[in-house]
Protein backbone atom coordinates (compact mmCIF):
# COMPACT_ATOMS: atom_id res chain seq x y z
CA UNK A 1 0.00 0.00 0.00
CA UNK A 2 3.00 2.24 0.43
CA UNK A 3 4.10 2.15 -3.21
CA UNK A 4 1.14 3.92 -4.90
CA UNK A 5 1.00 6.44 -2.08
CA UNK A 6 4.70 7.15 -2.50
CA UNK A 7 4.35 7.66 -6.23
CA UNK A 8 1.39 9.98 -5.77
CA UNK A 9 3.14 12.08 -3.14
CA UNK A 10 6.39 12.20 -5.13
CA UNK A 11 4.54 13.29 -8.26
CA UNK A 12 2.81 16.08 -6.35
CA UNK A 13 6.15 17.15 -4.90
CA UNK A 14 7.86 17.40 -8.27
CA UNK A 15 4.94 19.07 -10.02
CA UNK A 16 4.45 21.68 -7.33
CA UNK A 17 8.20 22.34 -7.14
CA UNK A 18 8.31 22.97 -10.89
CA UNK A 19 5.21 25.15 -10.59
CA UNK A 20 6.83 27.10 -7.76
CA UNK A 21 9.82 27.89 -9.93
CA UNK A 22 8.08 28.48 -13.21
CA UNK A 23 4.83 30.19 -12.28
CA UNK A 24 4.19 33.47 -13.98
CA UNK A 25 2.34 34.99 -11.08
CA UNK A 26 4.60 34.96 -8.07
CA UNK A 27 1.84 34.37 -5.52
CA UNK A 28 0.99 31.16 -7.38
CA UNK A 29 4.63 30.20 -7.01
CA UNK A 30 4.60 30.84 -3.28
CA UNK A 31 1.45 28.76 -2.83
CA UNK A 32 2.88 25.96 -4.99
CA UNK A 33 5.88 26.07 -2.66
CA UNK A 34 3.48 25.55 0.22
CA UNK A 35 1.97 22.53 -1.52
CA UNK A 36 5.46 21.17 -2.09
CA UNK A 37 6.32 21.52 1.59
CA UNK A 38 3.17 19.67 2.56
CA UNK A 39 3.94 16.83 0.16
CA UNK A 40 7.51 16.63 1.49
CA UNK A 41 5.92 16.27 4.92
CA UNK A 42 3.91 13.42 3.41
CA UNK A 43 7.19 11.81 2.29
CA UNK A 44 8.51 12.14 5.84
CA UNK A 45 5.42 10.41 7.17
CA UNK A 46 5.95 7.57 4.70
CA UNK A 47 9.47 7.23 6.12
CA UNK A 48 8.12 6.96 9.69
CA UNK A 49 9.58 10.33 10.68
CA UNK A 50 6.36 11.77 12.05
CA UNK A 51 7.86 14.48 14.25
CA UNK A 52 9.88 15.73 11.33
CA UNK A 53 6.76 15.84 9.18
CA UNK A 54 4.81 17.85 11.71
CA UNK A 55 7.64 20.30 12.28
CA UNK A 56 7.96 20.59 8.51
CA UNK A 57 4.33 21.62 8.26
CA UNK A 58 4.46 23.85 11.29
CA UNK A 59 7.69 25.64 10.43
CA UNK A 60 7.82 25.62 6.66
CA UNK A 61 4.19 25.94 5.71
CA UNK A 62 3.17 27.75 8.86
CA UNK A 63 5.96 30.30 8.97
CA UNK A 64 8.19 30.33 5.90
CA UNK A 65 5.41 30.30 3.30
CA UNK A 66 3.52 32.91 5.31
CA UNK A 67 6.55 35.17 5.35
CA UNK A 68 7.17 34.65 1.64
CA UNK A 69 3.55 35.44 0.83
CA UNK A 70 3.63 38.46 3.07
CA UNK A 71 6.76 39.84 1.42
CA UNK A 72 5.52 39.09 -2.08
CA UNK A 73 2.18 40.72 -1.52
CA UNK A 74 3.57 43.88 0.00
CA UNK A 75 6.43 44.57 -2.38
CA UNK A 76 5.65 46.33 -5.67
CA UNK A 77 5.55 44.10 -8.66
CA UNK A 78 8.23 45.91 -10.66
CA UNK A 79 10.79 45.45 -7.94
CA UNK A 80 10.33 41.70 -7.87
CA UNK A 81 10.00 40.46 -11.40
CA UNK A 82 12.59 41.32 -14.04
CA UNK A 83 11.15 41.87 -17.53
CA UNK A 84 10.87 38.67 -19.50
CA UNK A 85 13.94 39.23 -21.68
CA UNK A 86 15.11 35.79 -22.67
CA UNK A 87 13.20 33.50 -24.95
CA UNK A 88 13.69 29.78 -24.73
CA UNK A 89 13.74 29.91 -20.94
CA UNK A 90 11.06 27.26 -20.71
CA UNK A 91 12.89 24.90 -23.02
CA UNK A 92 16.10 25.30 -21.06
CA UNK A 93 14.40 24.61 -17.76
CA UNK A 94 12.67 21.56 -19.20
CA UNK A 95 16.00 20.16 -20.46
CA UNK A 96 17.65 20.87 -17.13
CA UNK A 97 14.87 19.11 -15.24
CA UNK A 98 15.02 16.07 -17.51
CA UNK A 99 18.78 15.82 -17.14
CA UNK A 100 18.46 16.08 -13.39
CA UNK A 101 15.86 13.31 -13.34
CA UNK A 102 17.99 11.05 -15.54
CA UNK A 103 21.12 11.61 -13.48
CA UNK A 104 19.17 11.07 -10.28
CA UNK A 105 17.62 7.83 -11.39
CA UNK A 106 20.92 6.48 -12.77
CA UNK A 107 22.62 7.30 -9.50
CA UNK A 108 19.87 5.55 -7.58
CA UNK A 109 20.05 2.44 -9.74
CA UNK A 110 23.83 2.26 -9.49
CA UNK A 111 23.96 2.81 -5.81
CA UNK A 112 21.10 0.48 -4.91
CA UNK A 113 23.34 -1.71 -2.83
CA UNK A 114 24.25 1.22 -0.59
CA UNK A 115 20.71 2.36 0.23
CA UNK A 116 19.47 -0.10 2.76
CA UNK A 117 16.36 0.83 4.77
CA UNK A 118 17.25 2.12 8.19
CA UNK A 119 15.95 0.35 11.24
CA UNK A 120 13.39 2.60 12.90
CA UNK A 121 12.74 2.00 16.57
CA UNK A 122 9.86 3.70 18.34
CA UNK A 123 10.88 6.95 19.93
CA UNK A 124 9.10 9.68 21.84
CA UNK A 125 9.41 13.43 21.96
CA UNK A 126 11.47 13.07 25.12
CA UNK A 127 14.03 11.03 23.17
CA UNK A 128 14.17 13.70 20.48
CA UNK A 129 14.78 16.40 23.04
CA UNK A 130 17.42 14.46 24.96
CA UNK A 131 19.22 13.53 21.74
CA UNK A 132 19.16 17.12 20.54
CA UNK A 133 20.55 18.53 23.74
CA UNK A 134 23.05 15.81 24.58
CA UNK A 135 24.53 14.76 21.26
CA UNK A 136 24.00 17.89 19.21
CA UNK A 137 24.18 20.41 22.01
CA UNK A 138 26.92 22.49 20.47
CA UNK A 139 25.10 22.87 17.15
CA UNK A 140 21.94 23.73 19.06
CA UNK A 141 23.66 26.58 20.88
CA UNK A 142 25.27 27.84 17.67
CA UNK A 143 21.85 27.83 15.94
CA UNK A 144 20.32 29.73 18.82
CA UNK A 145 23.05 32.35 18.61
CA UNK A 146 22.58 32.66 14.84
CA UNK A 147 18.85 33.20 15.29
CA UNK A 148 19.41 35.73 18.04
CA UNK A 149 21.89 37.69 15.91
CA UNK A 150 19.51 37.64 12.94
CA UNK A 151 16.76 39.00 15.16
CA UNK A 152 18.97 41.74 16.57
CA UNK A 153 20.17 42.61 13.07
CA UNK A 154 16.62 42.91 11.79
CA UNK A 155 15.61 45.11 14.71
CA UNK A 156 18.65 47.32 14.15
CA UNK A 157 17.85 47.68 10.45
CA UNK A 158 14.25 48.58 11.24
CA UNK A 159 15.36 51.15 13.77
CA UNK A 160 17.86 52.68 11.34
CA UNK A 161 15.20 53.03 8.65
CA UNK A 162 12.79 54.62 11.05
CA UNK A 163 15.53 56.95 12.25
CA UNK A 164 16.25 58.05 8.69
CA UNK A 165 12.67 58.70 7.63
Amino acid at each position, binding site marked *: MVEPVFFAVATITVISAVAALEAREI*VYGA*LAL*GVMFISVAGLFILLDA*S*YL*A*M*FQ*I*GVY*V*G*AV*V*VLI*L*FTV*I*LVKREELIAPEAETGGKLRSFIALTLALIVGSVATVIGTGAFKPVEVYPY*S*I*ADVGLNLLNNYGFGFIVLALVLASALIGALTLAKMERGES
Partner: protein
Amino acid sequence: MAHPMPDIFNPPAMISWSIQFALETLFSDWFLKVLIFPGFLQIGIAVYLFIWVERKLMADIQMRVGPLYCGRYVGILQNLADFVKMLFKEPIIPEKSDKFFFQAAPLLAVLVAHAPFAVIPFSEYFVIANTDIGLLFVLAIMGMFPIVALVTGWASNSKFPFIGSLRALFQHVAYEIPLWLSALGVVMISGTLNLVQIVKAQSNAWFIFLQPIGFAVFLVAALAELERIPFDLPEAEPELVMGWMTEYSGINFGILMMSLYVNVYAISALITTLFLGGWLGPGFLPPVAWFLFKTTLVVMFFIVVRAVFPRLRMDFLLRIGWTGLLGLSILNIFATVALIQLRILPF
Protein backbone atom coordinates in the same frame (compact mmCIF):
# COMPACT_ATOMS: atom_id res chain seq x y z
CA MET B 1 -13.21 -2.51 24.54
CA ALA B 2 -11.85 0.15 26.77
CA HIS B 3 -14.13 -0.20 29.76
CA PRO B 4 -14.94 -3.40 31.65
CA MET B 5 -18.53 -4.20 32.40
CA PRO B 6 -19.57 -2.61 35.71
CA ASP B 7 -21.41 -4.23 38.54
CA ILE B 8 -24.91 -5.25 37.56
CA PHE B 9 -26.38 -3.65 40.69
CA ASN B 10 -25.29 -0.20 39.51
CA PRO B 11 -28.05 0.88 37.12
CA PRO B 12 -26.71 4.26 35.96
CA ALA B 13 -23.25 2.87 35.29
CA MET B 14 -24.80 -0.16 33.60
CA ILE B 15 -26.92 1.99 31.32
CA SER B 16 -24.05 4.24 30.35
CA TRP B 17 -21.80 1.22 29.77
CA SER B 18 -24.35 -0.38 27.49
CA ILE B 19 -24.78 2.85 25.52
CA GLN B 20 -21.02 3.00 25.10
CA PHE B 21 -20.90 -0.67 24.07
CA ALA B 22 -23.63 -0.18 21.47
CA LEU B 23 -21.91 2.88 20.02
CA GLU B 24 -18.53 1.16 19.84
CA THR B 25 -20.01 -1.84 18.09
CA LEU B 26 -21.74 0.41 15.60
CA PHE B 27 -18.68 2.51 14.87
CA SER B 28 -16.16 -0.29 14.60
CA ASP B 29 -14.74 0.97 11.34
CA TRP B 30 -12.73 4.10 10.67
CA PHE B 31 -14.93 4.96 7.73
CA LEU B 32 -18.00 5.41 9.86
CA LYS B 33 -15.91 7.33 12.34
CA VAL B 34 -14.81 9.78 9.71
CA LEU B 35 -18.27 10.14 8.25
CA ILE B 36 -20.42 10.20 11.33
CA PHE B 37 -19.13 10.31 14.76
CA PRO B 38 -16.26 12.33 15.33
CA GLY B 39 -16.46 13.22 11.71
CA PHE B 40 -18.40 15.30 9.29
CA LEU B 41 -21.99 14.63 10.31
CA GLN B 42 -21.24 15.30 13.94
CA ILE B 43 -19.37 18.51 13.08
CA GLY B 44 -22.26 19.64 10.90
CA ILE B 45 -24.84 19.08 13.60
CA ALA B 46 -22.63 20.57 16.27
CA VAL B 47 -21.93 23.72 14.25
CA TYR B 48 -25.62 24.05 13.41
CA LEU B 49 -26.47 23.97 17.11
CA PHE B 50 -23.53 26.17 17.95
CA ILE B 51 -24.64 28.99 15.66
CA TRP B 52 -28.16 28.75 17.04
CA VAL B 53 -26.93 28.76 20.65
CA GLU B 54 -24.68 31.70 19.86
CA ARG B 55 -27.51 33.79 18.49
CA LYS B 56 -29.85 32.94 21.32
CA LEU B 57 -27.27 33.36 24.08
CA MET B 58 -25.97 36.65 22.74
CA ALA B 59 -29.56 37.82 22.44
CA ASP B 60 -30.25 36.88 26.04
CA ILE B 61 -27.21 38.77 27.25
CA GLN B 62 -28.15 41.77 25.17
CA MET B 63 -31.73 41.60 26.46
CA ARG B 64 -33.39 40.78 23.19
CA VAL B 65 -34.84 37.57 21.83
CA GLY B 66 -32.81 36.26 18.91
CA PRO B 67 -34.21 33.95 16.23
CA LEU B 68 -37.83 33.42 17.05
CA TYR B 69 -40.08 32.47 14.20
CA CYS B 70 -38.38 29.70 12.32
CA GLY B 71 -39.25 26.46 14.01
CA ARG B 72 -41.77 26.76 16.75
CA TYR B 73 -40.95 29.83 18.88
CA VAL B 74 -37.37 28.80 19.48
CA GLY B 75 -35.82 29.60 16.14
CA ILE B 76 -34.05 26.28 15.81
CA LEU B 77 -34.63 26.12 12.07
CA GLN B 78 -33.18 29.59 11.52
CA ASN B 79 -29.83 28.15 10.45
CA LEU B 80 -31.49 25.94 7.90
CA ALA B 81 -33.37 28.92 6.54
CA ASP B 82 -30.14 30.92 6.29
CA PHE B 83 -28.39 28.06 4.57
CA VAL B 84 -31.15 27.66 1.99
CA LYS B 85 -31.12 31.40 1.42
CA MET B 86 -27.40 31.37 0.79
CA LEU B 87 -27.76 28.50 -1.63
CA PHE B 88 -30.16 30.55 -3.68
CA LYS B 89 -28.14 33.76 -3.66
CA GLU B 90 -25.89 34.56 -6.54
CA PRO B 91 -22.22 33.97 -5.71
CA ILE B 92 -20.73 37.11 -7.17
CA ILE B 93 -17.18 36.67 -8.39
CA PRO B 94 -15.50 40.05 -8.92
CA GLU B 95 -14.24 40.49 -12.43
CA LYS B 96 -10.70 41.47 -11.58
CA SER B 97 -10.27 38.90 -8.85
CA ASP B 98 -8.12 35.84 -9.17
CA LYS B 99 -10.88 33.48 -10.14
CA PHE B 100 -9.20 30.22 -9.25
CA PHE B 101 -8.12 31.23 -5.77
CA PHE B 102 -11.29 33.19 -5.11
CA GLN B 103 -13.24 29.98 -5.40
CA ALA B 104 -10.58 27.71 -3.94
CA ALA B 105 -10.01 29.75 -0.79
CA PRO B 106 -13.27 28.80 0.99
CA LEU B 107 -12.47 25.14 0.35
CA LEU B 108 -9.01 25.66 1.83
CA ALA B 109 -10.64 27.30 4.84
CA VAL B 110 -12.93 24.29 5.29
CA LEU B 111 -9.97 21.91 5.01
CA VAL B 112 -7.92 23.76 7.60
CA ALA B 113 -10.91 24.03 9.94
CA HIS B 114 -11.93 20.37 9.80
CA ALA B 115 -8.44 18.86 9.95
CA PRO B 116 -7.97 18.94 13.76
CA PHE B 117 -10.89 16.56 14.23
CA ALA B 118 -8.82 13.75 12.80
CA VAL B 119 -6.79 13.53 15.99
CA ILE B 120 -8.97 14.98 18.75
CA PRO B 121 -10.30 12.16 20.91
CA PHE B 122 -13.96 12.31 21.83
CA SER B 123 -13.45 9.33 24.09
CA GLU B 124 -10.81 6.66 24.26
CA TYR B 125 -12.43 4.83 21.39
CA PHE B 126 -13.86 7.64 19.31
CA VAL B 127 -10.66 8.97 17.89
CA ILE B 128 -10.00 8.77 14.19
CA ALA B 129 -6.21 8.73 14.35
CA ASN B 130 -4.51 7.90 17.63
CA THR B 131 -1.07 9.17 16.65
CA ASP B 132 1.91 10.03 18.81
CA ILE B 133 2.04 13.50 17.30
CA GLY B 134 -1.58 14.52 17.78
CA LEU B 135 -1.02 17.85 19.52
CA LEU B 136 1.75 18.81 17.13
CA PHE B 137 -0.52 18.05 14.19
CA VAL B 138 -3.27 20.34 15.48
CA LEU B 139 -0.85 23.18 16.22
CA ALA B 140 0.79 22.81 12.80
CA ILE B 141 -2.61 22.94 11.08
CA MET B 142 -3.44 26.05 13.06
CA GLY B 143 -0.26 27.54 11.68
CA MET B 144 -1.87 27.38 8.26
CA PHE B 145 -4.69 29.79 9.13
CA PRO B 146 -2.73 32.92 8.09
CA ILE B 147 -2.24 31.47 4.61
CA VAL B 148 -5.99 31.04 4.25
CA ALA B 149 -6.69 34.62 5.31
CA LEU B 150 -3.90 35.97 3.11
CA VAL B 151 -4.96 34.07 0.00
CA THR B 152 -8.61 35.03 0.50
CA GLY B 153 -7.77 38.68 0.88
CA TRP B 154 -5.33 38.72 -1.99
CA ALA B 155 -7.62 36.85 -4.37
CA SER B 156 -10.39 39.38 -3.85
CA ASN B 157 -8.32 42.13 -5.42
CA SER B 158 -9.89 44.93 -3.42
CA LYS B 159 -8.80 47.26 -0.65
CA PHE B 160 -10.97 46.16 2.28
CA PRO B 161 -10.17 42.48 2.04
CA PHE B 162 -6.50 43.19 1.52
CA ILE B 163 -6.14 45.32 4.64
CA GLY B 164 -8.28 42.84 6.56
CA SER B 165 -6.12 39.92 5.52
CA LEU B 166 -2.93 41.75 6.52
CA ARG B 167 -4.42 42.48 9.92
CA ALA B 168 -5.45 38.84 10.22
CA LEU B 169 -1.92 37.77 9.31
CA PHE B 170 -0.33 40.01 11.96
CA GLN B 171 -2.78 38.83 14.57
CA HIS B 172 -2.40 35.12 13.83
CA VAL B 173 1.38 35.24 13.74
CA ALA B 174 1.55 37.23 16.97
CA TYR B 175 -0.59 34.81 18.97
CA GLU B 176 0.80 31.58 17.60
CA ILE B 177 3.86 31.56 19.85
CA PRO B 178 1.97 31.94 23.16
CA LEU B 179 -0.33 29.18 21.93
CA TRP B 180 2.55 26.77 21.32
CA LEU B 181 4.32 27.69 24.55
CA SER B 182 1.26 27.28 26.75
CA ALA B 183 0.59 23.89 25.17
CA LEU B 184 4.23 23.06 25.96
CA GLY B 185 3.44 23.18 29.69
CA VAL B 186 0.84 20.46 29.19
CA VAL B 187 3.31 18.37 27.16
CA MET B 188 5.95 18.71 29.87
CA ILE B 189 3.66 17.36 32.55
CA SER B 190 2.16 14.52 30.55
CA GLY B 191 5.39 13.66 28.72
CA THR B 192 3.74 12.92 25.37
CA LEU B 193 2.14 14.63 22.42
CA ASN B 194 -0.47 11.89 22.06
CA LEU B 195 -3.83 13.46 22.84
CA VAL B 196 -5.28 10.23 24.24
CA GLN B 197 -2.31 9.88 26.61
CA ILE B 198 -2.64 13.53 27.61
CA VAL B 199 -6.23 12.95 28.65
CA LYS B 200 -5.25 9.80 30.52
CA ALA B 201 -2.53 11.74 32.35
CA GLN B 202 -5.29 13.93 33.78
CA SER B 203 -6.90 11.06 35.68
CA ASN B 204 -5.81 12.47 39.02
CA ALA B 205 -6.08 16.16 38.39
CA TRP B 206 -7.16 18.09 35.36
CA PHE B 207 -4.50 20.29 33.85
CA ILE B 208 -6.57 23.40 34.40
CA PHE B 209 -5.69 23.07 38.09
CA LEU B 210 -2.06 22.15 37.49
CA GLN B 211 -1.49 24.81 34.84
CA PRO B 212 -3.76 27.77 35.53
CA ILE B 213 -1.52 30.32 33.82
CA GLY B 214 -1.11 28.02 30.83
CA PHE B 215 -4.86 27.61 30.58
CA ALA B 216 -5.48 31.35 30.71
CA VAL B 217 -2.80 32.08 28.09
CA PHE B 218 -4.08 29.30 25.83
CA LEU B 219 -7.63 30.59 26.12
CA VAL B 220 -6.67 34.15 25.18
CA ALA B 221 -4.37 33.03 22.37
CA ALA B 222 -7.11 30.73 21.05
CA LEU B 223 -9.58 33.63 21.07
CA ALA B 224 -7.09 35.59 18.99
CA GLU B 225 -6.40 32.72 16.61
CA LEU B 226 -10.10 32.22 16.03
CA GLU B 227 -10.69 35.92 15.31
CA ARG B 228 -13.44 36.10 17.87
CA ILE B 229 -14.30 39.27 19.71
CA PRO B 230 -12.36 40.85 21.44
CA PHE B 231 -9.81 40.03 18.75
CA ASP B 232 -12.18 40.82 15.97
CA LEU B 233 -10.25 43.44 14.09
CA PRO B 234 -9.78 41.56 10.79
CA GLU B 235 -13.54 41.44 10.60
CA ALA B 236 -14.30 44.84 12.06
CA GLU B 237 -17.70 45.63 10.74
CA PRO B 238 -17.84 49.40 11.03
CA GLU B 239 -14.40 49.73 9.52
CA LEU B 240 -13.77 47.07 6.99
CA VAL B 241 -17.24 45.81 6.07
CA MET B 242 -16.34 42.19 6.56
CA GLY B 243 -12.56 42.21 6.55
CA TRP B 244 -10.92 39.65 4.35
CA MET B 245 -14.24 38.07 3.48
CA THR B 246 -15.86 41.19 2.06
CA GLU B 247 -16.10 40.17 -1.55
CA TYR B 248 -17.75 36.87 -0.82
CA SER B 249 -21.48 36.29 -1.24
CA GLY B 250 -23.81 33.38 -1.59
CA ILE B 251 -22.59 29.91 -0.89
CA ASN B 252 -18.91 30.94 -0.83
CA PHE B 253 -19.67 33.20 2.08
CA GLY B 254 -21.72 30.50 3.75
CA ILE B 255 -18.84 28.07 3.50
CA LEU B 256 -16.36 30.60 4.89
CA MET B 257 -18.56 31.50 7.85
CA MET B 258 -19.18 27.85 8.55
CA SER B 259 -15.47 27.15 8.52
CA LEU B 260 -14.94 29.91 11.10
CA TYR B 261 -17.47 28.26 13.41
CA VAL B 262 -15.98 24.82 12.81
CA ASN B 263 -12.67 26.34 13.84
CA VAL B 264 -14.14 27.54 17.12
CA TYR B 265 -15.59 24.09 17.76
CA ALA B 266 -12.27 22.40 16.98
CA ILE B 267 -10.30 24.64 19.31
CA SER B 268 -12.90 24.20 22.04
CA ALA B 269 -12.53 20.45 21.68
CA LEU B 270 -8.75 20.88 21.88
CA ILE B 271 -9.02 22.98 25.05
CA THR B 272 -11.27 20.33 26.58
CA THR B 273 -8.73 17.64 25.72
CA LEU B 274 -5.70 19.55 26.95
CA PHE B 275 -6.97 21.25 30.07
CA LEU B 276 -10.40 20.03 31.11
CA GLY B 277 -9.75 16.31 31.18
CA GLY B 278 -11.25 15.21 27.86
CA TRP B 279 -13.74 12.47 28.45
CA LEU B 280 -12.98 11.90 32.13
CA GLY B 281 -15.84 12.24 34.55
CA PRO B 282 -18.00 10.35 37.01
CA GLY B 283 -19.52 7.17 35.67
CA PHE B 284 -23.17 8.07 35.41
CA LEU B 285 -22.69 9.50 31.91
CA PRO B 286 -20.85 7.81 29.05
CA PRO B 287 -17.42 9.39 28.42
CA VAL B 288 -18.54 10.82 25.08
CA ALA B 289 -21.28 12.76 26.86
CA TRP B 290 -18.74 14.22 29.27
CA PHE B 291 -16.56 15.34 26.40
CA LEU B 292 -19.46 16.99 24.59
CA PHE B 293 -20.64 18.62 27.81
CA LYS B 294 -17.25 20.14 28.53
CA THR B 295 -16.80 21.30 24.95
CA THR B 296 -20.21 22.94 25.15
CA LEU B 297 -19.09 24.79 28.27
CA VAL B 298 -16.00 26.14 26.51
CA VAL B 299 -18.04 27.14 23.46
CA MET B 300 -20.53 28.95 25.67
CA PHE B 301 -17.67 30.77 27.33
CA PHE B 302 -16.52 31.96 23.91
CA ILE B 303 -20.06 33.13 23.10
CA VAL B 304 -20.40 35.04 26.38
CA VAL B 305 -17.02 36.70 25.81
CA ARG B 306 -18.20 37.73 22.36
CA ALA B 307 -21.34 39.33 23.76
CA VAL B 308 -19.66 41.19 26.58
CA PHE B 309 -16.31 42.61 25.53
CA PRO B 310 -15.50 45.46 23.15
CA ARG B 311 -12.98 45.11 20.38
CA LEU B 312 -9.27 45.57 20.98
CA ARG B 313 -7.31 48.06 18.92
CA MET B 314 -4.66 46.69 16.61
CA ASP B 315 -1.51 47.99 18.28
CA PHE B 316 -2.81 47.01 21.69
CA LEU B 317 -3.66 43.56 20.39
CA LEU B 318 -0.19 43.03 18.93
CA ARG B 319 1.51 44.40 21.98
CA ILE B 320 -0.34 42.00 24.27
CA GLY B 321 0.50 39.09 22.01
CA TRP B 322 4.19 39.75 21.62
CA THR B 323 5.02 40.96 25.13
CA GLY B 324 2.37 40.13 27.72
CA LEU B 325 1.24 36.68 26.65
CA LEU B 326 4.71 35.60 25.59
CA GLY B 327 6.14 36.63 28.95
CA LEU B 328 3.35 34.86 30.81
CA SER B 329 3.79 31.66 28.88
CA ILE B 330 7.56 31.63 29.41
CA LEU B 331 6.93 32.24 33.11
CA ASN B 332 4.53 29.31 33.04
CA ILE B 333 7.21 27.08 31.49
CA PHE B 334 9.74 28.04 34.14
CA ALA B 335 7.23 27.40 36.93
CA THR B 336 6.30 24.05 35.42
CA VAL B 337 9.93 22.98 35.09
CA ALA B 338 10.57 24.02 38.69
CA LEU B 339 7.58 22.05 39.94
CA ILE B 340 8.57 19.01 37.90
CA GLN B 341 12.09 19.10 39.30
CA LEU B 342 10.71 19.37 42.81
CA ARG B 343 8.66 16.23 42.10
CA ILE B 344 5.40 18.01 42.85
CA LEU B 345 4.12 17.53 39.29
CA PRO B 346 3.02 15.17 37.71
CA PHE B 347 0.49 14.14 40.28
